[in-house]
């Protein structure tokens, strides 16, 4: 079971809970299960088949760049964080 920290601006979707525990072997499964439990998440986190460029995903403290394919360990801690944008990006990732 992965523990997801819910960003404060998304806690409306979880009735105020700041943490949710869901199953999933990949990030895709985790988000699908999150969506099933708390409808609305998928659209907030994903743009079609990808994580929105404005969101960074941390698995156990390390930012992943593998998107929805990212394997998720049994006891993973997942954070969805507003991406740090800088130079090029309109809603981009990482620059200076």
């Amino acid at each position: 079971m992965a523990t997801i920290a819910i960003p404060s601006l998304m806690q409306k979707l979880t009735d105020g809970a700041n943490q949710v525990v869901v199953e999933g072997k990949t990030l895709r499964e985790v988000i699908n299960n999150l969506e099933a439990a708390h409808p609305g998440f998928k659209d907030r986190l994903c743009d079609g088949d990808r994580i929105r460029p404005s969101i960074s995903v941390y698995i156990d403290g390390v930012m992943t760049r593998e998107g929805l394919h990212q394997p998720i360990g049994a006891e993973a801690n997942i954070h969805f964080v507003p991406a740090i944008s800088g130079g090029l990006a309109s809603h981009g990732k990482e620059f200076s």
Partner: protein
Amino acid sequence: MAEKKDYKVVGTRPIRHDGVDKVTGRALYGADFQTVGLLHGKVLRSPHAHARIKSIDTSRAEAHPGVRAVVTAKDFPAVEDKIADLGEGAANVKDLQDNVLAGDKALYKGHQVAAVAAIDPHTAEEALELIDVEYEVLPPVIKVLDAMKEDAPLLHEDMHTDEMGEKSEKPSNIAAHFQHKQGDPEKGYAEADVVVEQEYTTETVHQGYIEPHNATALYNPDGQLTIWCSTQGAFAVRGQVSEILQIPVSKVKVVPMEIGGGFGGKINVYIKPIAAMLSMKTGKPVKVLMSRADVFEGTGPTPGSYVRVKMGATNDGRITAAEAYLAFEAGAYPGSPVGAAAFCVFSPYKVENGTVDGYDVVVNKPKTAAYRAPGATNAAFAAETVIDEICEKIGMDPLEFRILNSATEGDIRIDGPPAPRVGFIETVEAAKDHPHYSAPLEGENVGRGVASGYWPNFGMKSSVSINVTADGTISLVEGSTDIGGTRASIAMQAAEVLGIPAESVTPTVADTDSVGYTDVTGGSRTAFATGYAAYEAAQDVKQQMIERAAKLWEVDAGEVQFADGVFSSVNGKEQEIDFKGLAERLDETGGPVVGRGTADPSQPGPSIGLHVVDVEVDPDTGKIQILRYTATQDAGKAIHPSYVEGQIQGGAVQGIGWALNEEYIYNEKGEMTNASFLDYRIPTCLDLPMIDAVIVEVPNPGHPFGVRGVGETPIIAPPAAIANAVYRATGVRLKELPMSPGRVLKAMGKI
């Protein structure tokens, strides 16, 4: 992972490989590129900060003798209004296009509107005056808080505020709002003995690289486009030009020339697609150069901002709660660095109860670009001066306060994930132990201030290949443009692995067809990530060379070891050959050796610095003089200490410039009134003392030699450190940047 401490090459100070070219004037920068049949392009820019473009008539310009082509936004291919992943970041392609040549509206003075190619630059310039643009001038909005008002003029009538995926109903200049939250701030304030809350504003500032943007493009009838230019990232140019002009990336070759400074400002493209479009129309190579005024008015600076910070602490110096409200000017299109600001504002410290709100707001100014630790300086100016006020109120030494509250590895960051290891306490201790901190301050109107700066650093992708040469040297091909000596620091990492001198490496920065994908020189990533790729490529070479030695000695590769530049056989045969000796014998052992390495490291390792400054303030004129400056910084491991010191010194001085005088000054029409190096006042050498750079080395576990990026961090602390010093000198706290003489006089009540 850091493998050993007694390095032969890493940590030494060889002469940089491109040095002779650069001191003799022979190094070719973008504007130095020449080719036969060259045409020259010039760009017409909007004279208005906000205007609807009703029509553009180019016929008179086209008829001007010597003019070969004119382009406007009508010449763009159609693109979708969507976020495109450009490999090195994502961007809305429509916005990118619109910023290169304005479509329906000009959104800032200096916005590119049309361009001309002609037989020489003067003829092209004459033709600009013959382009007739009919504008409907609209009211501009320049300041972030004005742009956030309900009744503010809207830049984009169809833009709605994005709150982590949720869109506002009404259109707004606020492109995005996000929030980080940990614990319970109210509970934290209840535990506090002291609570300080202050508001801060900063003005737009520019990177101020000395070389203006430049581009020469040649479009061939076979559809192949080549662009010679100065850029922080040849692949970033390729990606943007490809999207803007809707050409496959394989048809775009970008040749990076030497680059005269960037600091984040030479990632976005402005005139490169224009040079390409003009070449497409004329079939000739077209060179476009910006003037200094073009650079100020038409390229991305770093934003002005409004920042409010509230912090509570106990009398024994423990932070109990902290909040920040950050509103940043994105410029004409969304995408300010407010995300990085929100991340960095409290990063050095353990904050268990905190909230950070960030707002990305469009205004009628050039679209902001990155500038050295983008966002962090604005944020630190606020947070680090609030901390100074708290220290004063509870009577604690500001360095002790920082040691007490330092975030340590595993502490929960404000955005949720755990903090990685960084030598914060070590940099503070280094400052404490430095003679500067204990030196008595002499004279009147003088004061000493300190502040910290934290930057997460970035990894991203790099590729390196290495060819072994028969004389025992290697040629190293990399894709990172060298802005400050990175050829040397990358070459040195390969040399270390192979046990050869730095001088035995010939590094080359290659074009996009000649090296694997490499992200921009930015994010403090080049010595770290491209250095990592060079390490991997050298490891590959080493392994192949071990196999060659095995072949030579007719033993198993497992019986060959390599140490200190010498291959030897393990099993008693006592055979030895050094790298040079083996390189001479590649032909007979299987031919050329080519090593390759790629990197996309996940642990860049943050960097942190602590700055100490002494100032003198003239109480009659409000002018601040920097008397003494010391900057400590955790570099992880300094590959070439001279260039690490150089980054620290240069970054500190950019921060000093930001603190003292640098700002975009606007009139009521939204026009920048100081678009020159005369009135946009970057520091001269007469404004400064020597800058004492102290390198602290707490190795980054995410790099084989322990490297942490160093480029960005040193700009963050100076404005706050100087503001704290000015307070000691005058008793007045400055809450606006820059702390120009007029603002100081006002704060002191003299005017």
